[in-house]
């Protein structure tokens, strides 16, 4: 696309001039005409927004009723990849993007490198800097710039079936060796699969790589785009070989996750553990887990470690609000990005219903949150025992502009491992070659 960089900006600037006056009147391609929510103060300038948090309508209403000088016009343009596809298309076309967009942190560099996102430094970042941990800021930063307002994260833990563990006489494994031993024990006793190694969740597997100290990427946007790619390190190979071993021994499943197939397996007790993030209970309950025969059997524990004396905390998922370059008024959009889903009412609604695990330190330090007895875990104080420590220990990851390609390539390699076509080490080597080739082709200097 020719208009990818320079031209696109000119286009959107021209659009802005055209629609600024029309504003809430709904002229200029229906910018404010099609909101899913109700705009309360019709006189105020409108900021458009895409987001897919399930309680977004309430959150937006909270914001709109508390702010008279700006109103949000929100729509759900699709969840996750569907939304990124749309946003990508709008970025390429130079128009059609909202002012504020919800992005998972790992997607931010992909759009930042296309000059689609606004640096929030100087636009309110300084005022809220103290509200979030350094790890949270690292995840939404590219180089020196901050390109998203953090909202929620996914500190990881090990969700498990207490009834299954009791039946086979095992306790939550503290290390990966113990995890495998427990899996073997359950299998030998004729029990269910112990876990799952899904090809369609490369982000999850990437988190497991980090947990072994791998630093697969390094990215510095300043010197013309230099990427360090280290996907064939010993740390990576050890993790992939470990999981290749578990799948080939039949200790864990090879099922794609977030599918009805997986959910029915979880409900049916086919998996003794589900290594996942703090948002998992909300997702599982929505899919019907823990509401039938399996009510009250779920518990959670910290993720097993490679080196228990030196535990590493990792994160899977979590989103931020970014301001797009197509925003008519970046200051106002930044105010929305930082302000929406930051008020007490919205945050409490979010975490109580386990829709989000907030990154706001105000919540993370709030005894009501820490001591909360999570109904899904049968009253276990999951935040205190597992997720808050995991969130506090999290150091952040490095994401790159070639994240989309990396995930696609990684999915292929995980599938190859699951089909027995490649060992973990072979998959790591192939992945390194594939991703490196793409990075070079895209003009990056690869270290």
């Amino acid at each position, binding site marked *: 696309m020719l208009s*990818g960089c320079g031209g696109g900006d000119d286009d959107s600037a021209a659009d802005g001039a055209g629609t600024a006056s029309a504003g809430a009147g709904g002229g200029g391609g229906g910018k404010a005409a099609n909101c899913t929510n109700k705009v309360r103060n019709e006189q105020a300038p409108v900021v458009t927004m895409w987001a897919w948090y399930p309680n977004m309508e309430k959150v937006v209403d909270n914001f709109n009723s508390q702010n008279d000088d700006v109103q949000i016009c929100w729509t759900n343009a699709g969840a996750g*990849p569907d939304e990124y596809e749309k946003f990508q298309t709008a970025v390429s076309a130079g128009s059609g993007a909202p002012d504020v967009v919800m992005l998972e942190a790992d997607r931010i560099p992909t759009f930042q490198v296309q000059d689609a996102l606004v640096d929030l430094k100087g636009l309110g970042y300084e005022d809220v800097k103290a509200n979030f941990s350094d790890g949270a800021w690292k995840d939404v930063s590219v180089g020196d710039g901050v390109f998203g307002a953090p909202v929620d994260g996914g500190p990881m833990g090990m969700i498990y079936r207490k009834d299954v563990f009791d039946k086979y006489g095992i306790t939550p494994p503290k290390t990966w060796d113990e995890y495998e031993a427990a899996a073997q024990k359950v299998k030998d006793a004729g029990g269910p699969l112990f876990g799952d190694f899904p*090809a369609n969740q490369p982000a999850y597997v990437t988190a497991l790589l980090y947990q072994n100290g791998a630093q697969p990427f390094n990215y510095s946007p300043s010197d013309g785009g230099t990427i360090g790619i280290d996907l064939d390190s010993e740390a990576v190979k050890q993790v992939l070989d470990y999981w290749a071993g578990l799948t080939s021994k039949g200790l864990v499943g090879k099922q794609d996750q977030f599918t009805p197939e997986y959910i029915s397996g979880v409900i049916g007790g*086919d998996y003794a553990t589900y290594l996942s993030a703090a948002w998992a209970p909300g997702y599982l309950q929505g899919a019907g887990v823990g509401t039938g025969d399996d009510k009250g059997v779920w518990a959670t524990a910290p993720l097993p470690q490679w080196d228990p004396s030196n535990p590493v905390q990792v994160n899977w998922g979590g989103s931020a609000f970014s301001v797009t370059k197509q925003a008519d008024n970046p200051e106002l959009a930044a105010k929305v990005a930082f302000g929406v889903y930051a008020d007490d009412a919205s945050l409490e609604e979010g975490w109580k219903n386990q829709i989000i695990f907030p990154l706001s330190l105000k919540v993370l330090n709030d005894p009501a949150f820490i001591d909360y007895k999570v109904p899904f875990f049968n009253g276990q104080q999951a935040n205190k025992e597992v997720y808050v420590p995991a969130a506090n220990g999290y150091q952040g990851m490095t994401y790159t502009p*070639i994240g*989309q390609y990396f995930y696609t390539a990684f999915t292929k390699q*995980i599938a190859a491992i*699951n089909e027995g076509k490649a060992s973990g080490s072979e998959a790591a080597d192939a992945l390194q070659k594939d991703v490196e080739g793409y990075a070079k082709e895209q003009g990056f200097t690869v270290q």
Partner: protein
Amino acid sequence: MTLSLTPSTSTAHPVRAARRRAPARRKNLAGWLFVAPFGIVFVTMLILPLGYALYLSLFRRALIGGTRLVWFDNYVKAFNDPSFREGVSFVIRFSLVLIPVQMAISLAVALMLDLMVNRFARFSRLMIFMPYAIPAVIGALMWGFLYSKNFGPLADISSLVGADAPDFLGSKLIFWGLFNVVTWQWAGYYMIILFAALQGIDPSLYEAARMDGASQWQIALRIKIPLVAPALLLILVFALIGTLQFFNEPKILQPLAAGALPEDFTPNMYAYEQAFNLANYNYGSAISFSLGAVVFVCVYLFLFATRKRGSFLS
């Protein structure tokens, strides 16, 4: 691609001399006026976008370094790209298996229904056609559930014989999983076309054959099939074009079978991935045009092989 088709097909026909009469000019204008509304849509919705895509395909874009003119390098790259080549190889293999089976089923059912004239046959005809009315999204949703190893009927049937349920969404059987979805969706549509063509045959031909002592088999083979050959050819060509451009079903099943259906599974999916997920319209367009060339060659080869070039394009 459209333009390149023109000379090869039109030269196959002798140009009929236009009638030269007094109102010829008026009729000439009227003809254009009838065609014009569609022509405008055709130009704005097809020629223009295609031309634009062709233009885009001549550039190469990198995330760093921007866009530059590379002429036909993207095409050279596409035909050397393992993803594209394996995708083309898959759709050709898929066509070679799917189309004959699909045609055989459609033709067999159409012949059966042509023979059996009663309420059950009429009911069957409608029911077999019905999947055509179902959006691909919903068809894939239904089959995705039916394929389930945990809660689908396959699981129940397999457990009866004590076997593990086959995994039609796994990489080993995905070929047949897709084969089934496509056959289910389209066989009825093709069957109806063939059935209607069969119904259009003059019944007196059958009487004559019967008097010569021909069986129903012989009538089907010697009279019916040859007479519906043009219809068969038409749907073969459409099935071929559709299958080489295979996209909807694998794309929609992808969330259920990400491991078995990678983003470069078919050339069209690969083009889509390049354009919409990797922000590379240029290479995506080049892949689309390369696929177009493959489709054109395959269709032309097919028409040439059947030596019926004229009948479809008359």
